[in-house]
């Protein structure tokens, strides 16, 4: 201790002549830093209510509550996160994890109240002073807790693929599947978008856990075509996928396929449920497409005895005849159908209802009938010359390819249409060595086909001609009549006719093109063939569609008073079995998964109807 120790401390007084450290008006002068984790904000329009924030929150601070003005719809649960500031710890993991990136935090931090009940609010829905604050914590650039990129699906090289009918998509390996499955946050928003309402989070979780048997069991709860759907489903679920709001959606379809691929058919029986007891009821199903066979499967599970009538020589319907082998290899389809058959479902192949057996006969022989005949009749081009021999029907071409018949498409093929059938036809033609033009009335983004399919078709070498309105088909000049056709089409531009509707193509006057083709494949849609339903069946049809109730039962025309006078009004309108219908025949979605959903649903309806009738 020296003299310095007595003098030096007085250096404190130096401070007295400096500016104080004190902030004059702290509350006003010190806003939170630009990254400050203040009170929550939410872009309620962008938010889809997936609840991932709720799942990550370790404080159980977030509830999902219905929000005024946000109704549940596909891809939006209509719920919005409600934060309890009696729980929140401002860790912002909810912001980091938010798939859509709608959650954020403002840099506001003062909220004082004497009432402890007020500290709960729904950001973005209940107005708060800090709404829309540009500053505050946001997920940093290049930082995500969830993987935004999908595991790339291994595919054949397009150059190679176009040479063969080998399956293009090779399927995930175990590692890839588990990695992809790990991207899922199990929010379940997708379930509503799936026509069959499959338990998507459930089976994805099964992949994550590596429990394939459980996964298969979950798949079969609502869908007996996992192999087929795992390949060709229109996967509307992926459009609703929460992860898709901020990156690639989870490859739900491929994961489904992965599960089905992993389990041997022989093991199916060990996992899947079976009928507990035979009910003694007999049910006829017309059409062995996905819808019909689904109905058959679920009816069989309920203990009914099912017979399926199929006009073609093989079961599968459009899955077999409408979808080329490189997308859905026949063994995969056979696996699905094989399992259904193994439950005792009889498939009468080559038996067309209407010609081989009448509907009325089915109605008398069986306790109920399910119609799932789909849309076998192709629409024609509806232009002059559409009956030209080189104008082929897309579905027919695909069916012929399935049967292995020579197609004789020639060297240059035009495919007219923008749906999946068009793409499949184009790619089938490519595989037959043709040069293919796809002509479509509207733009590429308007095409109803699966984007993957369009991408693949183009990658395989098809050229896409957008905004082409067909005008006429006629014999090409100098060609042998009926051997080559000249396709006349008009270039169009897109015109916004009505607000809120999609623009329509309008022909540009004078911009008419003429191209010679060896074949013109028309794939602009198909219609039903209801010729087997007769007047006497008294089934109500409207605009070529059966009129069905919630369970797919076709309404029966009010029994003509003349036919059965005095019949009690409450009694069944006819003694004949009730007829149910579903699939493309009835619904507007016209895809396999909707048909499957209809089939499942109708099976429940039929069972209830039988119950009611029996009691």
């Amino acid at each position, binding site marked *: 201790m020296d003299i310095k120790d007595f003098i030096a401390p007085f250096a404190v007084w130096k401070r007295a002549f400096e500016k104080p450290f004190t902030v004059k008006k702290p509350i006003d002068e010190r806003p939170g830093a630009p990254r400050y984790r203040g009170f929550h904000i939410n872009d309620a329009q962008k938010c889809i*209510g*997936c*609840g991932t924030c*709720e799942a990550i929150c370790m404080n159980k601070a*977030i*509830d*999902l*509550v*219905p929000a005024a003005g946000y*109704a*549940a*719809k*596909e891809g939006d*649960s*209509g*719920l919005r996160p409600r934060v*309890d500031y*009696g729980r929140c710890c401002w860790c912002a993991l909810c912001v980091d994890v938010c798939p859509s990136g709608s959650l954020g935090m403002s840099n506001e931090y003062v909220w004082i109240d004497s009432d*402890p*009940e007020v500290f*709960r609010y729904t950001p973005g829905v209940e107005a708060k002073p800090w709404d829309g604050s540009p500053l505050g914590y946001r997920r940093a650039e290049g930082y995500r807790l969830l993987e935004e990129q999908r595991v790339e699906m291994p595919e054949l090289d397009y150059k190679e693929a176009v040479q063969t009918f080998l399956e293009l998509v090779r399927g995930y390996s175990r590692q890839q599947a588990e990695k992809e499955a790990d991207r899922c946050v199990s*929010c*379940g*928003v997708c*379930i*509503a978008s799936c026509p069959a*309402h499959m338990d998507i*989070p459930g089976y994805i979780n099964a992949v994550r856990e590596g429990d394939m048997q459980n996964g298969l069991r979950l798949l079969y709860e609502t869908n007996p075509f996992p192999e087929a759907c795992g390949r060709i489903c229109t996967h509307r679920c992926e459009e609703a996928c929460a992860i898709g709001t901020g990156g690639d959606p989870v490859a739900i379809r491929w994961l489904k396929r992965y599960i089905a691929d992993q389990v041997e058919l022989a093991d199916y029986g060990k996992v899947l449920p079976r009928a507990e007891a035979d009910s003694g009821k007999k049910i006829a199903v017309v059409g062995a497409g996905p819808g019909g066979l689904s109905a058959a499967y679920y009816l069989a599970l309920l203990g009914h005895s099912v017979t399926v009538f199929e006009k073609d020589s093989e079961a599968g319907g459009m899955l077999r005849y409408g979808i080329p082998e490189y997308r859905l290899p026949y063994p995969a389809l056979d696996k699905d159908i094989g399992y259904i058959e193994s439950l005792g479902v009889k498939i009468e192949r080559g038996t067309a209802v209407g010609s081989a057996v009448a509907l009325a006969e089915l109605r008398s022989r069986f306790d109920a009938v399910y119609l799932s005949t789909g849309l076998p009749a192709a629409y024609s081009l509806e232009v002059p010359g559409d009956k030209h021999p080189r104008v082929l029907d897309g579905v027919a071409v695909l069916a012929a390819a399935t049967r292995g018949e020579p197609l004789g498409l020639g060297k240059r093929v035009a495919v007219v249409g923008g749906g999946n059938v068009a793409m499949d036809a184009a790619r089938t033609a490519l595989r037959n060595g043709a040069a293919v033009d796809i002509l479509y009335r509207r733009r590429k983004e308007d095409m109803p086909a699966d984007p993957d399919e369009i991408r693949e078709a183009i990658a395989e070498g098809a050229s896409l001609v957008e905004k082409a309105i067909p005008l006429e088909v006629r014999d090409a000049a100098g060609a042998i009549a009926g051997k080559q056709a000249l396709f006349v089409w008009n270039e169009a531009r897109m015109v916004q006719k009505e607000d809120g509707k999609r623009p329509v193509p309008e022909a540009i006057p004078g911009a008419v093109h003429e191209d010679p083709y060896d074949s013109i494949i028309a794939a602009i849609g198909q219609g039903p063939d209801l010729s087997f339903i007769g007047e006497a069946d008294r089934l109500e049809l409207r605009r070529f569609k059966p009129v069905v109730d*919630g369970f797919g039962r076709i309404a029966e025309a009010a029994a003509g008073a003349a036919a059965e006078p005095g019949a009690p009004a409450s009694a069944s309108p006819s003694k004949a079995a009730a007829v149910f219908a579903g699939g493309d025949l009835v619904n507007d979605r016209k895809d396999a998964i909707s048909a499957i959903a209809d089939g499942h*649903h109708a099976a*429940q309806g039929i069972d209830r109807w039988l119950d009611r009738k029996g009691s």
Partner: protein
Amino acid sequence: MNELAERLARRYDAEGWHEQRKDLASISIPALRVRDVLAWLRDEEGYKHLSFITAIDNIERGVFTLTYTVRNHDTKHSLMVHADIIRENPVVDSVHLLWEQAWTYQRELKEWFGIDCPGSPRKDEEFVLEGWDQLPMMRRDFDSLAYSNATYAERPGRVTHDPAAYMKAQLYPEADQ
């Protein structure tokens, strides 16, 4: 380091040497030899510093696994010494004579797991809790949430919805009919 493993195995029936990092390894010893092993490690092998003592409730195997982490500052190596003791009436030798701070850890073991270390000072006094009348709370079979819910009042009025179930109720309620 494997020589150490061998020596431990030879002298004290230690087994399961696992090299986690180049400066961290673990080994299992019989619970009866805990004090011997630690004293030997401290006096002969230079593991003079006790980092911490804790236990893991391996309820499936019916044992508590004790972990004594000791560090040799000269070789810059840490060793986690494990010893299993039966969950029913767990007792282990006290090491409070080896390290002066060990009794605190042992007091914690007593309160948190119910593991008794006979002779350890103040081991039966309350450590962090006051008036605790439940299972020792770090045991796996003590359910913290259930206890909390039963004991401490929560502010009512919270309700949440599962998106999938809510969408089902809103969009396709018929599916369950």
